[in-house]
């Protein structure tokens, strides 16, 4: 423990050289820009920039890449809050209450809380995990395909059960999302599914195309019905939560940190699972769940913290086991190997200056993000002050061009517009959009983990109930499902559950 502390101090010596500080700064800034641009997310951001790190020292290179990674996670939040377009998958959940807060003139607060939450989540996750991570990550290996399948099933079901007015409508959204995730080539068998022999569909539907249409365009169509309702946005009332909101905000940040950390340790657990669970937990523990979906500050603080704690924690399995826990981590792993570093049990002993330097730089990077953002938040929030009649055409244009820039293809733009209309109709029918997009993101992993479980299993589907962790999760899933059905039959749902209209 003491040894680790000394190593960490030495790490700071490495990270605090002016060069590494500069790279850290560049990484964080680039990451933020990448996160704000619609379409570009952390995976593509880090992958795009890997070649630039060739001429650098390995430590500097990895410091910069990690900076891009968590910078883009934060950047993605900004567009979710301001214009209801999630910049990357983990911010989908932030849209729900973040955008509502913007409508109430509290964009500054939403962004401020997200910055503070991200900072605390990121720092605490790194700090705790530095000391206990290597031990925990071997425990996390107990998560095999059956556990993955059960936890993803639980996450999806919770989204459905807790977010809509009707279980059936939620399930319809979820299953359409799953069906859409099947489009493209199947990873396991190589079979092309639902591509209708179109080359454009072979790689599947892009998350960004779907999110920009379902969230961004549909919101503008809803607003178009009644321009007077949008009117002039109220003044931005400061960057910090109101005095009475602090305790609940900080509690949400604390819970978010815990959830993000635990899920980040498990190689393969997506960050959207972390933010989803955090949102659901906040809604469950809240005294007045009806505020959720109407601009509840915990609905932003919790998930944002969770997703940053997740990104910090995700580095631990990479360091200690050499196993990437997300697509972004896989890209960073490639960078490690390219620079002659072999992540795995030997990394801490063979390259201590590297590991500790990087950990120290994450402290510094997170501080930088916070310092950069508190003043910038005011600037971002001013975007929400632009008169709507001027703002919405510009948003439409950015969404249009952002989609076009993905592949330079109008096909994507057309598909995005179709999703926009679908999103509008879904809002009118009160079918929850977020249930559809969450299942879409997790769909292919859900499928492959189920196929793996069944291949491993000697008892068929019983495998999900023969392993302790998976059994517990499955039982919770069944209870949640049973309760939802019960309340649907009793038709108490609309009284009991606070309704979120997304």
């Amino acid at each position, binding site marked *: 423990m003491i040894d680790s502390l000394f190593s960490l101090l030495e790490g700071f010596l490495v990270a605090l050289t002016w060069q590494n500080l500069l790279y850290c700064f560049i990484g964080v800034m680039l990451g933020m820009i990448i996160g704000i641009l619609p379409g570009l997310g952390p995976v593509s951001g880090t992958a795009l920039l890997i070649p630039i790190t060739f001429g650098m020292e390995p430590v500097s290179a990895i410091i910069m890449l990690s900076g891009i990674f968590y910078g883009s996670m934060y950047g993605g939040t900004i567009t979710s809050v301001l214009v209801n377009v999630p910049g990357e998958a983990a911010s989908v959940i932030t849209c729900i209450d973040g955008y509502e807060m913007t409508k109430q003139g509290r964009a500054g607060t939403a962004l401020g809380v997200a910055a503070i939450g991200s900072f605390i989540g990121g720092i605490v996750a790194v700090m705790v995990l530095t000391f206990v991570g290597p031990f925990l990550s071997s425990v996390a290996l107990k998560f095999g395909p059956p556990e993955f399948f059960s936890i993803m099933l639980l996450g999806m079901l919770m989204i459905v059960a807790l977010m809509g007015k009707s279980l059936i409508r939620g399930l319809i959204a979820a*299953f359409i999302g799953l069906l859409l995730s099947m489009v493209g080539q199947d990873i396991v068998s190589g079979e092309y599914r639902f591509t209708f022999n179109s080359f454009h569909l072979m790689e599947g539907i892009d998350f960004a195309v779907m999110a920009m249409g379902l969230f961004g365009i549909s919101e503008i169509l809803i607003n178009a019905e009644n321009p007077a309702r949008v009117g002039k946005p109220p003044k931005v009332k400061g960057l910090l939560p109101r005095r009475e909101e602090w305790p609940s905000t900080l509690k949400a940040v604390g819970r978010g940190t815990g959830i993000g950390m635990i899920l980040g340790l498990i190689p393969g657990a997506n960050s959207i699972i972390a933010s989803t669970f955090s949102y659901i937990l906040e809604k469950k523990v809240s005294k007045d769940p009806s505020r959720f979906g109407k601009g509840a500050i915990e609905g932003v603080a919790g998930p944002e913290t969770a997703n940053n704690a997740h990104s910090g924690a995700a580095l631990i399995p990479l360091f200690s086991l050499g196993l990437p826990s997300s697509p972004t981590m896989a890209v960073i792993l490639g960078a490690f190997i390219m620079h002659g570093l072999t992540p795995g049990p030997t990394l801490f002993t063979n390259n201590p200056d590297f590991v500790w330097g990087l950990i120290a730089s994450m402290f510094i990077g997170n501080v930088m993000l916070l310092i950069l953002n508190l003043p910038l938040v005011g600037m971002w929030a001013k975007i929400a002050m632009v008169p709507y009649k001027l703002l919405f055409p510009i948003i439409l244009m950015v969404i249009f061009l952002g989609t076009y820039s993905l592949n330079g293809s109008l096909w994507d733009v057309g598909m995005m517009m179709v999703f926009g209309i679908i999103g509008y109709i879904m809002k009118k029918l009160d*079918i929850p959009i977020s249930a559809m997009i969450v299942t879409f993101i997790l769909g292919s992993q859900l499928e492959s983990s189920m196929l793996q479980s069944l291949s491993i299993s000697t008892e068929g589907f019983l495998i999900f109930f023969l392993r302790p962790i998976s059994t517990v999760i499955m039982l919770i899933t069944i209870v949640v499902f049973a309760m939802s059905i019960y309340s649907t039959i009793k038709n108490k749902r609309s009284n009991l559950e606070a309704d979120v209209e997304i």
Partner: protein
Amino acid sequence: MTNAKTGIIAGVAVLTLGIVSLIISFDYGYYSEIGPGPGFFPVWISGILIVLAILYIIENLRGKNVSSEEWPAGQSLKQVLFIIMSLLVFFVLFLLAGYIVAGIVFLSMVFWKEYKWYVAVLLSAGITLIFYVLFNHLLKVHLPIGGMLF
């Protein structure tokens, strides 16, 4: 049109989607000798979607759990259709005449009612050009200036 009716129409649409995808899914191997095949998931998902669609239609027929959202009518409907139409114009002009023309026409259309005509045109041209510079020069994403027409 009542909300229950639109709910039924939507239910039928989802039902159709489920049936079509179920038929397509049967083309992919449901089960291989080693385990579930590529058709396993799609078949189940489509099947469950069909059941859900039927339940949804029944709910709406009984008038239970109907969406409380109002469908737009009159002026509101016109405004929604107007935005969809202007996006389509943007799309088609982008294809035919390139970004600059499409951008200016699209923005002028949506600004027309809100601003005086010359303000609308100037504003549109300004915004279009700013984005052109941003994407083409800063981000190096090539936005076509000419289209299929010229």
